[in-house]
């Protein structure tokens, strides 16, 4: 189990029960557990949806779509069964928040799935857990079994006459399956490749039925909103960005860890206060504010004091993404960081569409050669070109995820790329001790 950190600025909502033993269902009940779903049972579906809509809760997986609005797209009548899917396939590098929820508060997720089910009229939920989180599956399995044992799941839940079932499923280790439509393919036992939208999952989702698919943190937030009210939750955050969010601070920080902070919290404060600043008196070089797939922010951009919510981040030229905040100090080599980033996306490209499949491969090969001193000037432009050719043009957002950081690296740190040219050794090698990769071709 990961160590928990804390900071006075934190507003604990989703993380309220962290470290309180809420994995145990009885303890969870003591901590107001399963009250929200019982409240939901007394409400009309539209009431639940409106409540969530008004709370300003936006998808915590990265896209930031209004959750209540997403639920409202599910047709009331459907010939096929409806489904609630919990996306626990957390695999964006720099992101480790859902893992804590599964570890500390799995029943909140179950409750969130149930409430979503009641809101859209589904009777079945799936909790899909990332393949590498195998150990979390045991927690999830036990939590589901305990909920069944108490009669919270199954037929006639809380004597309401309603039925709700939840199943768990473990991934097989593909990043792509974190993408909602690929996750449905995976859950159906198929290759983890994305689906085209429209039709959206709300209309044609899992097994062809209307489906709500939400991130684990999103669903875990829902019970709190039901009990605390839409207004309370909305006011925790910034305009149109309701509530709080788990931020995963990592990199060159004195106090890395997962902190729950209000939406719209200052990035600068997050680094220098919550995260305890940069060790060894080093200077800040840049921050990747929302998981490895978003554009890096330079020290100047961070120091201009940008707020951590979906809209402000977009305005700043990056994205809030999955809440993974990766801090780089001035010893980090951007070329090497770009290589590390692209290596991941190349490895995880599902192989469905050409710009991503071939673009990430070409980028990786170029960056390996480049970082080992074999780069030539035209490589810099070519990397930019390859990334541009992916951005917005691939089948699914994985291509964007690979393209956005590369574009930002080249645009914002072109000089560092040029410093690697003409066979020069990596200027940061003495800091990182990075092994020089063999020159290819």
């Amino acid at each position, binding site marked *: 189990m990961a160590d928990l950190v804390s900071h006075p600025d934190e507003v604990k909502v989703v993380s309220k029960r962290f470290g309180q033993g809420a994995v145990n269902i009885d303890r969870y009940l003591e901590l107001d557990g399963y009250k929200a779903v019982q409240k939901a049972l007394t409400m009309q579906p539209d009431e639940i949806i409106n409540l969530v809509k008004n709370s300003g809760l936006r998808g915590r997986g990265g896209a930031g779509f209004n959750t209540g609005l997403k639920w409202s797209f599910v047709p009331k009548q459907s010939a096929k069964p409806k489904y609630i899917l919990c996306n626990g396939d957390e695999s964006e590098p720099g992101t480790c928040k859902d893992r804590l929820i599964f570890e500390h508060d799995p029943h909140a997720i179950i409750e969130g799935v149930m409430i979503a089910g009641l809101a859209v009229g589904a009777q079945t939920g799936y909790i899909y857990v990332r393949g590498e989180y195998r150990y979390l599956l045991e927690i999830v399995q036990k939590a589901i079994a305990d909920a069944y044992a108490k009669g919270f799941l199954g037929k006639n839940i809380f004597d309401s006459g309603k039925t709700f079932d939840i199943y768990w499923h473990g991934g097989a280790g593909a990043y792509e399956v974190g993408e909602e439509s690929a996750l449905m393919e995976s859950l159906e036992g198929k290759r983890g490749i994305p689906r085209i939208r429209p039709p959206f999952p709300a*209309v044609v989702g899992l097994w062809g039925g209307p489906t709500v698919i939400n991130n684990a943190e999103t669903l875990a937030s829902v019970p709190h909103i039901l009990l605390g009210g839409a207004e309370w939750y909305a006011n925790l955050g910034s305009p149109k960005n309701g509530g709080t969010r788990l931020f995963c601070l990592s990199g060159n920080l004195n106090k890395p860890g997962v902190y729950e902070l209000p939406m719209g919290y200052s990035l600068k404060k997050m680094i220098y206060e919550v995260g305890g600043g940069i060790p060894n008196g080093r200077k800040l070089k840049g921050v990747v504010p929302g998981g490895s797939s978003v554009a890096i922010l330079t020290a100047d951009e961070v120091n201009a004091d940008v707020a951590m919510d979906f809209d402000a981040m977009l305005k700043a030229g990056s994205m809030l993404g999955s809440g993974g905040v990766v801090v780089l100090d001035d010893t980090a080599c951007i070329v090497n960081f770009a290589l590390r980033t692209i290596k991941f996306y190349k490895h995880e*490209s599902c192989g469905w569409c050409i710009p991503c499949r071939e673009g990430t*491969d070409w980028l990786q090969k170029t960056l390996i050669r480049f970082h080992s001193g074999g780069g030539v000037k035209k490589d810099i432009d070519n990397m930019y070109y390859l990334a541009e050719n992916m951005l917005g*043009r691939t089948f699914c957002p994985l291509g964007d995820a690979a393209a956005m950081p590369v574009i930002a690296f080249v645009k914002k740190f072109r000089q560092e790329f040029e410093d690697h040219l003409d066979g020069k050794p990596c200027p940061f090698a003495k800091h990182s001790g990075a092994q020089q990769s063999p020159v*290819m071709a």
Partner: protein
Amino acid sequence: MATIYVDGKPHQVDAQQNLLHACLTLGFNLPYFCWHPALGSVGACRQCAVKQFRSPEDKHGRLVMACMTPASEGAQISIADPEAVAFRKGIIEGMMENHPHDCPVCDEGGECHLQDMTVMTGHDYRRYEFPKRTFRNQYLGPFVNHEMNRCIQCYRCVRFYREYAGGQDFNVFGIRNLAYFGRHEDGVLESEFAGNLDEVCPTGVFTDATHKHHYTRKWDMQFAPSICVHCGLGCNISPGERYGMLRRIVNRYHGDINGYFLCDRGRYGYEFVNSEQRIRQPQIRSNGQIQPVPKQQAIEEGGRFIASATTVIGIGSSRASLESNFALRMAVGANHFFAGASTQELQLLHLTLEILRTTPVASLRDVEDSDAVLVLGEDVSNYAPRMALSLRQSVRQQPFAMTDKLKIPRWLDHAVREAAQEHKGPLFMATVAATRLDDVATDTYRGAPDEIARLGYAVARTLDPEAAGLRATTASGSLAGQIVRAVRAVTGLGKPPSGAPDADFETMAQRIAQALNGAERPLVISGLGCRSGPVLKAAANVVRALQRNGKPARIALAVPECNSLGLAMLGAKPFEEALAVAREHSGTTAIMLENDLYRQAPGSDVDVFLRSANHLIALDHLQNRTTATAELTFPAATFAESDGTLVNNEGRAQRFFQALTPQEIQESWRWLRDIFVAAGRREFSAWKTLDDVIQSLVSEFPDLAQVAEAAPAASFRMAGEKIPRQPHRYSGRTAMLANINVSEPKPPDDPDSSLSYSMEGNPDQPPAALIPFAWAGGWNSYQAWNKFQEEIAGPLRGGNPGVRLFQPPAQAGEYFQDAPKRFQPREGEWLVVPLYHVFGSEELSILSPGVKQLSPKPYIAMNDEHAKGAGLQAEDMVELAIGGASYRAALQIRPDLPVGIAGVPVGVDLFAGIQLPAWSKIERVS
């Protein structure tokens, strides 16, 4: 219709389609890979990107994939937009990263979609400087060659193989740029449609392995419009020749029949044409020695045999052209014109004709579009294979109606499949044994032919109480059949049938009736496969009952050979009567036209027939048991070497044309003409060309009058010019025979068609029946068919080739009466039925090495309960006796066979001439 604007100009397009389909229909050159006209859009390759603008004011626009974007009213797009052009170029560049650039040694070179698209996008310089990824290739059988390094991962192969053709043993493995398309291990591809991978693959990953043995570039081949001869469906093909050898067969698009796909028997069965066993010049047998004789001498000898005969018996052929059969009939007279087929088969063929004349008939395209299907007695996958592929699509029709409601366009292939999931439209398979369509069937019923017929009669009666025969409720008793529900799980694994409960039989008939009656385009499929008149009649009755209920129902019947119906229409009499004539008369001369009698009739009867005749003349392609007995043998041209007309299973007359011009070999009608002229029948000398024969034919047979319209006459010219059989890039013509004579010979003259043996001629699109090959400017691959169609995947310009001889009747025909009695299994005896094999049951294709390799060994099959009862085990050598002959083969256990039924693979040599169905004991022999 919708108006879309392409680069500022308005165009009328089909609003139900996507922008790629619309642009290609309009004739624009927009590159693509993952999209295929028959497979729809999935958006994988990103190659067809265009710029779309929200309004005329929108100057910025955004890139969209044309294949994934509806051609909606007012859509404004630009193909020429610089950003779109640059992006498309970048996509090809990405594909070319790992493509080996081995075009000079690649079989696809010169007809490669990837080459075409590369040129089209303007990508001409390789900037990628890193090593390419490599794969290990697999052995995939005798037909399909695998070269994975060339793969650009467009996913078409796996989509065709699994999703379209239902194959299970081929898939995509791995991820990122290591996605691998193949089998889990080396081995023969199981699907009988695997050969289509050659055309589906946009580059050289899957190529024709048979072609590899005698490889020739597309541009160096001489093509002809032709018709497949390996079953009765009449798929259109394009055979390619060079140096007098047939090099390969590829699909020739026909909007109503084969569309874009062939079966592997049709594609790879061609090698018999190049066989060592070919009869290449006239032969005479004297003193037990077979010797070649000069053509003229043989003709004169033949003339003497005819002139001296008291009676001349002509045996026609269901695999010979209408013209050759007609020539024989004219020569020997109607009274002495026979089919090699038995009375039983001819009766069935005449019954088929009767039904076709009085019932709306479905083309394969109609089969595909049917939304509820009942198959009575036919193992479609093995008997008329291409039809099985169409049937597989028919089960998508009802799901389409469901996805239409969700507003998912039908071309958005994966979205449709995700929404439809496992939902399939009704397809009921009532057959003697398991079939390879059972996996998509709603229900399967297995029973004896009579039981299958009874099911059909019960369905008809349920639909219309006026229909004759038994009512569902009277179909009681212990029916020797089994109903297998949820067949996907248990196909072939069901318990041995021991009689279906009556209630099941009744409810099944009701379910079928309900499904057919509830459909918009119901279809019944049957045919000669189980050789049962009652089954054919039952099928017709179901269609008639549906028609009386106001349903636009159709029928599709499978027939044994490529010209079975043509021969029947010429009034050929059964072999038994030929035998009687031969026995009664002495001094007869018998002419066997392209017919190995030993495959048609019991060997003892054939022996008697051949011995009774005074002189025997055979005309055929290859040496066989019948030609071995002939005194005089003439080398008859195969489909690839001749012109003629075939009548397919729907009653469509289609013309095929010569691709090869072998020296001594000529069409059977020409040999017959020459022989009869030599015998003093001067009137036949009027037949100078094929059109002369056709003219006689249509005046003699008003029924066949439309045959003349099956294709334009030989006098047809396009702007005064002939149509070239050779592509414009045909190379080396002047030097091809320089090793023999440095003077270039004059190209052969073709009096029979308006096609020339040259690359010279009119380069424009000929009438559909005369298109020798698909090729268009910038489109060197099979994808060039886009350029020949009125609309993408629609009919060819000017209408699809061929002419239907039967017009749909104004009203439903009369019901057939006489429903069969219940099938009664017999103690100690089995009803032996024919079992078909796509590779092995057809006479000509089995002479091709690849098909031979995949043909079954002889066996005798029965279910395990039977075998146990008789104390038999798998692989035991057993014997059965039918028609005075006994047959020994290893016992095969087939749990799917019903009680009282045994099956043997027809077409394999051991069972040549066996007359089925027939009763026999089956006993173990040591």
